[in-house]
């Protein structure tokens, strides 16, 4: 069965790979602009930020929790950056303060989940709104965009002079490899999967379940704050409602990547592939005439449902077969 499961996981990742190729071909067919380095760079920049946030989210979903406050934490970081820059703080100090604020935001989520014992879904829906509100209070209706071009270059120039490779994707690649190695090959990685599958057994085996979960929420806060800074520079603007709705895109990418919403399974490779399928699909569809951002929401929602549904298809099939057997039996009796 383990072999079957590995095979199933491979199939999922293979399917994503096929989807990636399919989307690429479709994109080229739709518009020649699809492969222009400008288009690829924009796509790349967008997805890099989401994909980086998807990494801590992957770990949190693997242990059976969720963090919906990621985009709001990003916004707090971005708007704090804006307001401090207006007050002429040195950039180094601003970065430290923003990251510390992200850690605090994650700590609050983590403490409410692990020490108070509230469900993370409820807690982070709460802080989703709370942090977003705080973010908008920090900066108000002003927008800050007078950042020096040496910072905002990350939104214009490619990484190491490669035109179509954004900084965000390069950073993601490094972090993804680190996360992947951690998950596959370290005792922490083993512990995360064990927690996701059976928290109680993990606890009985001496794994510090609460401490690990707390740490993951803090990590998520730090990473999201850092992405907040990066994203602000890419846009070269900090303003109200920055990154709104990102949390659902991040969750979609994680689930599309084959991470089980019930915890205990999932790989970084899957999530990375899912991020690019998602980004290229969006880019290709938006290049289609008469297709707009709203239409894409329909696609995005459908993808989310599909990625939860498909891994459980075998289960549904078995249930349907059982129901059918019962139905036939009843008819046989009445006959």
């Amino acid at each position, binding site marked *: *069965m*383990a*072999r079957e*499961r590995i095979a199933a996981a491979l199939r999922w990742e293979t399917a994503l790979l096929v989807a990636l190729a399919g989307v690429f071909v479709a994109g080229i067919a739709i518009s020649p602009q699809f492969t222009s380095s400008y288009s690829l760079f924009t796509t790349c920049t967008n997805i890099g930020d989401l994909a980086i946030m998807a990494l801590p989210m992957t770990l949190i979903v693997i242990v059976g929790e969720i963090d919906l406050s990621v985009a709001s934490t990003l916004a707090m970081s971005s708007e704090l950056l804006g307001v401090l820059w207006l007050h002429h703080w040195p950039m180094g100090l601003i970065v430290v303060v923003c990251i510390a604020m992200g850690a605090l935001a994650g700590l609050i989520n983590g403490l409410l989940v692990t020490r108070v014992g509230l469900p993370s879904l409820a807690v982070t829906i709460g802080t989703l709104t709370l942090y977003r509100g705080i973010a908008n209070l920090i900066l108000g209706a002003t927008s800050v965009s007078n950042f020096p071009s040496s910072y905002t270059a990350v939104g214009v120039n490619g990484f190491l002079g490669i035109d179509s490779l954004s900084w965000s994707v390069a950073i993601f690649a490094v972090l993804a490899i680190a996360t992947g*190695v951690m998950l596959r*090959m*370290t*005792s922490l990685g*083993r*512990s995360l*999967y*064990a927690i996701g*599958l*059976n928290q*109680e*057994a*993990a*606890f*009985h*085996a*001496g*794994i*510090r379940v609460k401490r690990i979960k707390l740490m993951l929420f803090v990590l998520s806060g730090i990473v999201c704050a850092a992405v907040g800074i990066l994203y602000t520079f890419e846009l070269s603007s900090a303003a109200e409602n920055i990154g709104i709705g990102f949390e659902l895109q991040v969750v979609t990418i994680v689930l599309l990547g084959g991470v089980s919403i019930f915890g*205990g399974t999932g790989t970084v490779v899957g999530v990375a592939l899912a991020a690019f399928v998602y980004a290229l699909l969006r880019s290709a569809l938006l290049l289609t005439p008469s297709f707009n951002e709203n239409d894409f929401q329909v696609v995005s929602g459908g993808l989310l449902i599909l990625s939860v549904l498909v891994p459980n298809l075998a289960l549904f099939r078995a249930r349907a077969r059982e129901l059918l*057997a*019962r139905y036939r*039996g*009843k008819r*046989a*009796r009445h006959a």
Partner: protein
Amino acid sequence: MSSSATPAVAAKPPSPAEPVVSLVEASKAFAGVHALREVSLELFAGETHALVGENGAGKSTLIKLLAGVHQPDGGQLQIGGEPVFLSGPGDAAHRGIAVIYQEPTLFPDLSVAENVFIGRQPLRPGRRIDHRAMDRAVNEVFARLGVRIDPERIARGLSIAEQQLVEIAKALTRSARVLIMDEPTAALSPIEVQRLFRVVEALRSEGAAVVFVSHRLAEVFEICQRVTVLRDGQRTLSRPLEGLSETDLIRAMVGRDVLTEAHEQHAPSRTVLEVQRLTREGVFRDISFEVGAGEVVALAGLVGSGRTEVARAIFGVDRYDAGTVRIDGQKLKRGSPTAAMSAGVGLVPEDRRQQGLVMEQSLARNIALASLRKLRRAGVIRARTEREFATDWAKRLQVRYSRVTAPVSTLSGGNQQKVVLAKWLARKPSLLIVDEPTRGIDVGTKSEVHRLISQLARDGVAVLVISSELPEVLTVADRVLVMREGQLVAGLTREQATEEAIIAAGTAAALPSATRKTPS
């Protein structure tokens, strides 16, 4: 079957000639693997029918066919000689077949009576629930069974024995003709077992057909009239019990003779575990005892006397309010399994599936789970190192498995328990606490586990065993500590420890729990 509130067991008088319910050459396969092959079973009114076999022999599948959970692939189920098709558990219940599981699941916030009548409450005009009629009917059933449980008390906090009685009451108020009890005694203390047996006898004499599943053969001989033995999904024996011996049954179960075990005395050296005045409010108090290296100490007593809770407190999965735990003279930090593990303590928990194993993960992952730090090389664990480590320990404990990468859920109960043991032995503990080492494990594996415990003591490990099975206690223990209502009431040496002495110490002045009336 009218759902009247008046309990009536048998519509027909007992007629041993014709079975009430029978399976005729029933087969069932899951994903191509045969769980049952052409098994026939006849259940007669007024008879208690033992169903025995090693884990994985097909008992559960057979019960699920009778309970309507599964439908046979081949053969048929007959009720009163007529072939029937059960569309689901509800259908089976409607036709008078009731199943009482080892650990019943009641609604904890509803009263006993509400649980008994769940989904079919008697109504007063205006569709209001008739609580008085419910209480009356439940009281009547309990009176007939000779037990006293307040029908209005909330189900939360009922002992497993009491919960089973509630399930039995549920079956009786449905006028069940066939009562299937799946290992009902596994979690019961000897006193509770005796009370359950009186109830079973009462039901049988009223004409019910009872199916009794148990791993304890002594109980089978005590309560049953007929026996069916399964091995590898096939029936190897089915006949009246009269004239059979335990050895006959064991041979039919395992296909060979199993040697009876003798106790092996170990001499303790230095003290490893020292517990002083350990107290957790409302659970246990003033518990003091020691366990030496190379010694097996058993913690006996009724279920609910606080044995498991003391073990959990020592290992740190539960907190305690006062007292100290010392390992090799060093005080142990409270409430931290991680600290207990670094001090050399291991706990094989009572609930294997929930606490001992990650069922979906492989043997390798499970065995390595408590030794991850040891397996690290430069911060990294290689899958191959992990597999070799696990294979080594699985072999030492003679786990029967196909591949170390197969999920533990594919193993039988006995082999799963060996995996949990392997996980802890791989840490080379100085103190191993084993809670119910052989619950739900077949005869053959049971004696292997006992030999393992003995071997551990010989290797100088201090072993604390918690067990509800007195023969097991007497086989493995060098010393027996008895708990009653949260207190340590007796320490018996090997010579003093007899079944009678342990029962006497564990129950003196304590009323059997079902007669306890809770203050409302």
